């Protein structure tokens, strides 16, 4: 045939990829068909399937091909769906459906009638697929496929409903219960999720809940048994094994108590559950509930009974938590290999759109019934009509949503499998582009999709947060404005306690024409979203406002906020999570710059801190007080650095303890150098002088807000004894004065020295020796367990440690001494707690908290350190490990003690970071507990859980302590 030579090009233009095969195959068909294949998403597939169908049923196919419309439908269907091609191969007689009028989608009533005629499991499924062909044919033929998304999704939901009705009828005939009883059994199938909202996909799980009715209480039993059997039979009919393949999964897991709950319940039992047990996120699922099949009257009663729960629950209980839950569903775990091809999950996916719309519905639907719609697009329209979001934006997002749904529809139609993944290979992308009619080729389609994803990713910010700005200032380019009441409702909905105040801060940050205001107008929506994720968004926003006012127009600051979203996110997390940090940032605003660089957040080594201190002393030779101020500034700066690292969980509590110890050591060392350089005799003052770290400082286990326990020692070299003593006392006074800081309190605590408050503030090494030889009190030995040379003359420091070793690691210790330690501990417990304090809540001296563990470890050290070398350490945790290693403390007990010590130490630091105040009592106030829990990494709403685990852990520890310490 001569035409064939010219048509190779022609065929390629129609969309065939293998023109040689196409030529061959087309030759067997009427010539007029050729150009029709341009209508097919995949012409090669359409052609191949038509040829195959003709082999099986040439008469039926040819009859179809004779009609222009029917032939076009066939080509479109086979080009878009191999699965429907297989359906026709199984049932060629069903091809006839394509000759029926397909100008309109089937209505719910039509679907109901046609499915109701089903006589068997296979018949239901064949009828279902025949209607699916009708819907797909209409869908594929529509002039604007984007506009078709909504009616198609609705028709698919209606088809699911009609199918369930048909299945229910069949199921009733199959049960082994008395026929009249089964026939009288009232069962409603409630559609949830997309089936409920009439926005179903071509293939997806159909979410349902079953409700039965019972005439009286005695028949409940029976109703539930029969109802459950019916539900199982229905599920089998749509999804069990049979000749014709299964349709889809019927998922009843949204029912009360989820997969563990009873499959079927009475209406009263449902209501009782929602009244008593339901979590508030469960109510949000009910937002989509609709009678789908079965007894409609019962279904309507169910919906009427549960609707009030949706809107009243949003008003109070833990609304913010459930929002968080919804958000988690958006970003729930996506396998790494799917990340780039997910249409549904992830930011910018379909679920992201659904989340934002539902959140807006729940916030504004409390007062405005007009936004209480089930389906996503309808709700979007209603929100725009109600003035909650801009009309243009609503239109734009509706388009994006339809686009994503259209891609999903076409992907699922191809093989009728549940998939939300974009194809990866070019060929399938090309077919998808043709199937959707949205792009000319694979490249263009991917570009379009990516652009949509980016727009949708910003959706939440644009629709939820940006309008908040419009409530306080008219923004250029915004076509609508929400009222301040609406803005307040939104801010309250995401956790602002004082939404009016927040709105004032927003106004202050965004008003004006300055560059800063402009940038902040652009950024604030996303910043607000991040602040709302923290425990105290109100305070975070206030601090951010003050910080912005301080840093003013600093270019780096604005640039950093604008260009580095990671950094801005961190800043918001810190500001809304910690008051301590907020205050420090206001003093050291330039620290904001560290947030973009983890290197900057690593603790500085002691060496480099000392170098910096030495440089300062070198620079300020004449003004000691200025030098000291600069040294104290270093300490505050480093504490801020460590606080940031702590909150961002870049360092653990032990690492922070070491780093805080280094910072303290650096300040004392430098200040001591400064103090000794100031003497009458200059640096050479005739004595050696050293600072000995004690307590937690000695153990290198400092927390935020810990005092530094110290003792001072000197040795006369050239000076006379009396002069040496007075010289040492001068040094101590100077050291105290130079290190004293009111901004972040720094206290040198000398309380552990011999004779305590009544003792000399500083002693010579010889005096210490004489004292210990003479008195050798057990509690002095115990205090020395954590004595460690920290600053000053090292030789002297080491000599002191050697002296301490003799006292603290006695070769033998008598029962009397050990009993004395226990007795003192018992007395201290009664006396040292502040008046009226609850021992179970004191982090330092309380029941089973830090000091219990430390005393126990020290008792073991006193008794065994002379023989077990590993016990000779100032660190509580190291000594604990050594004690466990030497089987002096049972391993499991040691593990508990270690856990508790770290937990309490972390809680204590978190308490300081959260409140910005030094306190050792676990607060009873929920908001405070919540803040501490969040810093410890608990999820939102864990105040009670954190408090309970603190009390439990310390109670268990106390039991171990009492057993090991006193017995």
């Amino acid at each position, binding site marked *: 045939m001569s035409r064939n030579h010219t048509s190779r090009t022609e065929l390629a233009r129609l969309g065939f990829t293998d023109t040689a095969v196409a030529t061959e195959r087309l030759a067997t068909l009427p010539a007029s068909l050729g150009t029709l294949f341009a209508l097919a998403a995949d012409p090669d597939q359409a052609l191949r399937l038509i040829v195959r169908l003709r082999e099986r049923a040439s008469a039926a196919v040819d009859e179809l091909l004779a009609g222009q419309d029917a032939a076009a439908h066939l080509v479109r269907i086979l080009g878009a769906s191999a699965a429907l091609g297989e359906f026709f191969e199984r049932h060629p007689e069903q091809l006839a459906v394509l000759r029926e009028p397909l100008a309109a989608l089937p209505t719910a009533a039509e679907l109901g009638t046609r499915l109701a005629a089903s006589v068997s499991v296979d018949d239901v499924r064949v009828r279902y697929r025949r209607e699916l062909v009708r819907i797909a044919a209409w869908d594929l033929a529509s002039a604007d496929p984007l506009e078709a998304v909504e009616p198609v999704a609705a028709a698919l939901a209606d088809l699911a409903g009609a199918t369930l009705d048909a299945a229910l009828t069949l199921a009733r005939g199959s049960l082994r219960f008395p026929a009249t009883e089964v026939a009288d059994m009232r069962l409603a199938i409630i559609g949830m999720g997309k089936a409920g909202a009439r926005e179903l996909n071509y293939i997806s799980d159909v979410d349902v809940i079953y409700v039965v009715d019972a005439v009286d209480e005695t028949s409940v039993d029976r109703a539930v048994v029969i109802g459950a059997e019916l539900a199982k039979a229905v599920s089998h009919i749509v999804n069990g094994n049979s000749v014709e393949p299964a349709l889809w999964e019927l998922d009843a897991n949204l029912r009360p108590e989820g997969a563990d709950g009873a499959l079927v319940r009475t209406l009263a039992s449902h209501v009782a559950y929602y009244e008593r047990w339901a979590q508030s996120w469960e109510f949000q699922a009910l937002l989509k509930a609709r009678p789908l099949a079965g007894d409609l009257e019962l279904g309507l009663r169910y919906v009427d009974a549960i609707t009030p729960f949706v809107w009243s629950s949003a008003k*109070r209980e*833990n609304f913010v938590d459930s929002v968080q839950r919804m958000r988690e569903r958006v970003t729930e775990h996506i396998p790494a290999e799917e990340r780039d091809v997910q249409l549904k999950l992830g930011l910018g996916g379909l679920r992201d759109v659904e989340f934002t719309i539902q959140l807006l519905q729940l916030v504004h639907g409390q007062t405005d019934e007009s936004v209480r719609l089930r389906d996503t697009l309808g709700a979007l329209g209603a929100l725009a009509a109600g003035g909650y979001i801009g009309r243009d934006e609503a239109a734009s997002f509706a388009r994006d949503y339809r686009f994503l749904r259209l891609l999903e529809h076409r992907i699922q139609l191809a093989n009728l499998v549940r998939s939300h993944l974009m194809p990866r290979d070019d060929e399938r992308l090309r077919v998808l582009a043709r199937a959707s009619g949205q792009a000319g080729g694979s490249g263009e389609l991917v570009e379009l999709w990516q652009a949509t994803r980016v727009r949708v990713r910003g959706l939440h910010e644009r629709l939820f947060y940006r309008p908040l700005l419009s409530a306080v200032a008219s923004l250029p380019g915004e076509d609508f404005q929400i009222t301040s009441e609406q803005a307040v409702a939104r801010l309250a909905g995401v956790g602002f306690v004082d939404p009016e105040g927040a709105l004032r801060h927003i106004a202050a940050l965004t008003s004006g024409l300055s560059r800063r205001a402009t940038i902040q107008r652009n950024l604030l929506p996303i910043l607000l979203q991040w602040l709302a994720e923290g425990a105290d968004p109100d305070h975070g926003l206030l601090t951010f406002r003050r910080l912005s006012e301080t840093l003013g127009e600093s270019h780096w600051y604005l640039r950093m906020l604008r260009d580095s979203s990671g950094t801005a996110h961190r800043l918001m997390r810190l500001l809304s999570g910690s008051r301590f940090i907020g205050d420090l940032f206001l003093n050291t605003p330039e620290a904001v710059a560290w947030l973009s660089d983890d290197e900057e957040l690593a603790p500085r080594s002691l060496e480099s801190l000392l170098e910096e201190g030495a440089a300062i002393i070198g620079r300020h030779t004449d003004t000691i007080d200025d030098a000291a101020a600069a040294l104290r500034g270093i300490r505050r700066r480093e504490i801020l650095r460590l606080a940031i690292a702590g909150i961002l969980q870049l360092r653990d509590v032990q690492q922070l303890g070491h780093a805080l110890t280094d910072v303290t050591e650096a300040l004392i060392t430098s200040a001591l150098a400064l103090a000794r350089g100031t003497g009458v005799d200059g640096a050479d003052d005739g004595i050696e002088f050293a600072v000995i770290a004690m307590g937690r400082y000695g153990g290198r286990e400092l927390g935020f807000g810990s005092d530094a326990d110290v003792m001072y020692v000197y040795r006369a070299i050239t000076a006379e004894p009396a002069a040496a003593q007075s010289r040492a006392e001068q040094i101590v006074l100077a050291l105290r004065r130079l290190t004293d800081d009111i901004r972040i309190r720094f206290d040198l605590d000398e309380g552990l020295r011999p004779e305590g408050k009544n003792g000399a503030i500083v002693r010579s090494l010889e005096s210490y020796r004489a004292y210990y030889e003479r008195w050798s009190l057990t509690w002095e030995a115990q205090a020395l367990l954590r004595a460690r040379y920290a600053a000053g003359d090292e030789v002297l420091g080491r000599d002191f440690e050697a002296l301490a070793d003799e006292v603290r690691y006695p070769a033998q210790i008598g029962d009397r001494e050990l009993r004395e330690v226990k007795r003192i501990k018992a007395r201290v417990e009664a006396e040292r707690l502040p008046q009226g304090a609850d021992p179970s809540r004191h982090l330092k001296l309380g029941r089973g908290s830090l000091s219990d563990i430390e005393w126990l470890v020290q008792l073991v050290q006193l008794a065994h350190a002379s023989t077990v070398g590993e016990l000779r350490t100032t660190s509580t945790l190291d000594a604990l490990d050594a004690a466990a290693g030497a089987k002096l403390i049972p391993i499991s007990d040691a593990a508990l003690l270690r856990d508790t010590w770290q937990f309490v130490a972390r809680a204590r630091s978190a308490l300081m970071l959260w409140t910005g105040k030094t306190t050792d009592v676990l607060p009873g106030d929920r908001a405070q507990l919540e803040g501490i829990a969040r810093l410890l990494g608990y999820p939102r709403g864990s105040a009670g859980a954190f*408090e309970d685990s603190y*009390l439990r852990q310390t*109670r268990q520890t106390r039991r171990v302590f009492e057993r090991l310490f006193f017995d």
Partner: protein
Amino acid sequence: MDKQQDFVLRSIEERGVKFIRLWFTDVIGSLKSVAIAPAEVEGAFAEGVGIDGSAIEGLTRAYEADVLLRPDPTTFQTLPWRGEVEPTARMFCDIETPDGEPAMADPRNVLRRALGKAADRGFTFYTHPEIEFYLMRSSALDESGQPVPVDTAGYFDNVPGGTAHDFRRRSVRMLEDLGISVEFSHHEGGPGQNEIDLRYADALTMADNIMTFRTVVKEVAIEEGVYATFMPKPFSDHPGSGMHTHLSLFEGDTNAFYEAGGQYQLSAVGRRFIAGLLKHAPEITAVTNQFVNSYKRLWGGGEAPSFVCWGHNNRSALVRVPLYKPNKGQSSRIEYRALDSAANPYLAFALMLAAGLKGVEEGYELPPEAEDNVWLLTDGERRALGYNALPSSLGDAVRLMEESELVAETLGEQVFNYVLLNKRSEWAEYRNQVTPFELQRNLGIL
């Protein structure tokens, strides 16, 4: 505002209610009440009513924090007793922290949490208590230091024209008026002793009902000029007042204890639940039998269940599997017999449920049933059969409870602590007594 709340507001209006009592319970199980005016009810629903949190800590108050009472509109009832001059209604309250979280120290919340955990596994928990109590002439004692009962009748005796008869009739009427269904009521074994059985309900409703029941019984007694007491053992020589409680678990609308072919129609869940109750019975006794006096009942003989074992229709066993009624799968249940009428029903139910569920979860083996009267066995026999004893005093019970993670976890650390504080101090005060027994026994000869 939801429909239930609307209903309450409308009812207040329609019935001309002048006061609304907000009811809640402290850790010991004493009913507490705050009255508000009708105008304040709407605010109470929306924002709660602030009170001092130490009100729920029992007698030893350790820690003070403000809490909110949040009335539960489903519990709204007008109070039928004559003592109220003007129409008065009541609602039970949940206790919340100022930020709207359930208060950890609220006994009602303890039970809610335990029930919530069961609901996570698909179970709802139903109880049916048989509440015994004594009617006395008054709360005063006679010259020999004994209370005086209103009659001298016995088990199921019909006392013509007797106070107890009228009393029960009137109480039952009043309970029904309050929406509490009564199954059964009769005269019990002791003089002046009565029993009223409440129709089974879910455990939270039942705990509320028991609190109401005690109030109703006390109120009716006052109307009839007598005194009602739930003291576990007011007479050495007569039976104590227990609160045998039938327990059942439902999965949706189906009884989870029932299995058609099982021994006594008990399912595996049922058997394991019993095993859990038995294993943990000693450590929950400080709550199920919370007073010094409770142990006088537990160890006073008669039918008191002093030993940890189970039996089918064995009235000396701690857990009894009652006679099964054919074709009533819904009624499968077991009876826990240690509980007494003075327990805090919220905490006791929470612990019984937790103990049973522990058995279900961990798949405890049920030991063989006790077929003999356990009281008639020798110590050696009981030891051979593995029947442990329940604690013999409050002091013992408290020590066992202190060691129990199950109790701590179920009550939550705070309630756990409050209960221990209360019970330790009660035990310490009791030990300080020099009793008539010692004086009679020892003074003459020493």
